[in-house]
């Protein structure tokens, strides 16, 4: 399967130039870019690991792309995303989020159903990758 979180997952994987152009858009808007990675892509896994702090003072998009590539080198088979944070009043939240790296194989998720009272079912989404301990996934 292809994980379709993030704002550009239905497009072909972005090239470095395309990533840089999106970072530039974020920087022009005054948003702080952050690189995050995970080996647990569950849709409710909000807190991916931070590669570093958000780049609040960054002016040159090439610097952020460098960090993307450093993160890719360290975690070539993880999910990596770029998030842009807006600190203006009324927002104070991410304004962009897109995936820039994926594992070679994406095993996806299993849907577990627990039949409860009447015909109701409790659903749980299980990330196959998490069957293995952190660090051993996506080898």
């Amino acid at each position, binding site marked *: 399967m292809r994980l379709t*979180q993030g704002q550009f997952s239905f497009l072909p994987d972005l090239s470095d130039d395309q990533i840089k*152009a999106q970072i530039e858009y974020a920087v022009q808007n005054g948003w702080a870019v952050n690189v995050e990675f995970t080996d647990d892509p569950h849709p409710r896994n909000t807190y991916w690991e931070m590669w570093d702090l958000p780049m609040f003072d960054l002016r040159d998009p090439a610097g952020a792309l460098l960090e993307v590539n450093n993160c890719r080198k360290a975690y070539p088979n993880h999910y990596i995303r770029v*998030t842009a944070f807006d600190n203006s009043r009324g927002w104070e*939240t*991410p304004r962009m*989020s897109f995936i820039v790296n994926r594992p070679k194989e994406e095993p*996806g998720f299993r849907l577990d159903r627990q039949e409860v009272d009447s015909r109701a079912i409790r659903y749980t989404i299980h990330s196959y990758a998490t069957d293995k301990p952190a660090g051993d996934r996506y080898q």
Partner: protein
Amino acid sequence: MSQAISGEERYKSGVIPYKKMGYWEPDYQVKDTDIIALFRITPQEGVDPEEAAAAVAGESSTATWTVVWTDRLTACELYRAKAYRVDPVPNTGPGTKVDQQYFAYIAYDLDLFEPGSIANLTASIIGNVFGFKAVKGLRLEDMRIPVAYLKTFQGPATGVVVERERLDKFGRPLLGATTKPKLGLSGRNYGRVVYEALKGGLDFVKDDENINSQPFMHWRDRYLYCMEAVNRASAATGEVKGHYLNVTAGTMEEMYERAEFAKSLGSVIIMIDLVIGYTAIQSMAKWARKNDMILHLHRAGNSTYSRQKNHGMNFRVICKWMRMAGVDHIHAGTVVGKLEGDPLMIKGFYDTLRETRTEQSLEHGLFFDQDWASLNKVMPVASGGIHAGQMHQLLTYLGEDVVLQFGGGTIGHPMGIQAGATANRVALEAMVQARNEGVDIWNEGPKVLDKAAKWCQPLQMALETWKDITFNYASTDTPDFVPTPETTV
């Protein structure tokens, strides 16, 4: 100048013009805490505009048709609404096809209204006056709601910011579709449409306004099958997905029962129809805040009173009331689709729903500066006759914080529902990407779509199927003012 008479003369039994009763006060200094209503008035023959405005002020506040001595037991000068300004509406009256109309500005003291009650506010402002004989037509065009009054309302249960955080979806409009046919599908068949559309790439699918609990599909059945579809699609894509389960019913008790069931099944969103009424909407908004639920509102019924220019009320006022009442989504027009919508007017609605503060902007129909006092933002929903080929226009007109709902434009796709959904999602992501890269999408949009269609066959089919579909009818609700360097109004 005020023509009010005072003292003993004012309270002699009998009938005196509203103007003289103190409802026309052209020198009145509007207070920051006043609620202001702007009415479009078409007076009856022989009624002068100030008297008509005073009559509207009177009938929407303290007055009755005759003098009553019991006024003198109260601080009645405070409680009287005051018409303080009357302007002729441009392009009406002699030499035009319509009767002379006037914009009347009326100020109401804060203490005329119960805190936190849309029902009470509207019982005054639109309660009796619209059937008043002294006016041929009356339309509530806009309101200025003071911060002091806004702070007595909860506002949107979730709001745009938290909705996006909960859904983990940023940087692009959300995509939805309404299940079609809107009536007649069994629960099992209905859920099929939901699953296909969500798996294909949509974020939300939606019940239609009139899908409640009918003989062909009772509500529990629909909820169970829809949640199976939602969870299956979520597992297939790794995304949070949702289906707006319409909880509209005949009584509050039934609505709460349906909402509780939706919650127990893990739905992220429920929906209600505008026709349930303001109090029911506020109750559901409180329920939604308490239960971490996004609340979608379908504006069913609004066109019965919002579409004609001479009588009723402007939809922007509904937008204001609904933001106060506390809904998270509201259908607010598409500009390019099949339903009513002038681009400038719709910008006014969208700004009203989404901005933390709006400035007066007559060309967008916004007559007042409005500070939203930190009430959450409402996500507008664009629905009705839109398709992937219009993506550049939709993004330009409506911006990023909107749910684009392609019902027919998803389900009617020649390759099936999943393909229809994928076409829309690819078109959307390609357009956002291009816009962010600095492409002039208004002009280059069709090229962006064609380029993406080269590698995405569903998009290519969508563009071919609907390429010539447009809805070019003149709007009935249009701006009264054209932009000029200096406004004189």
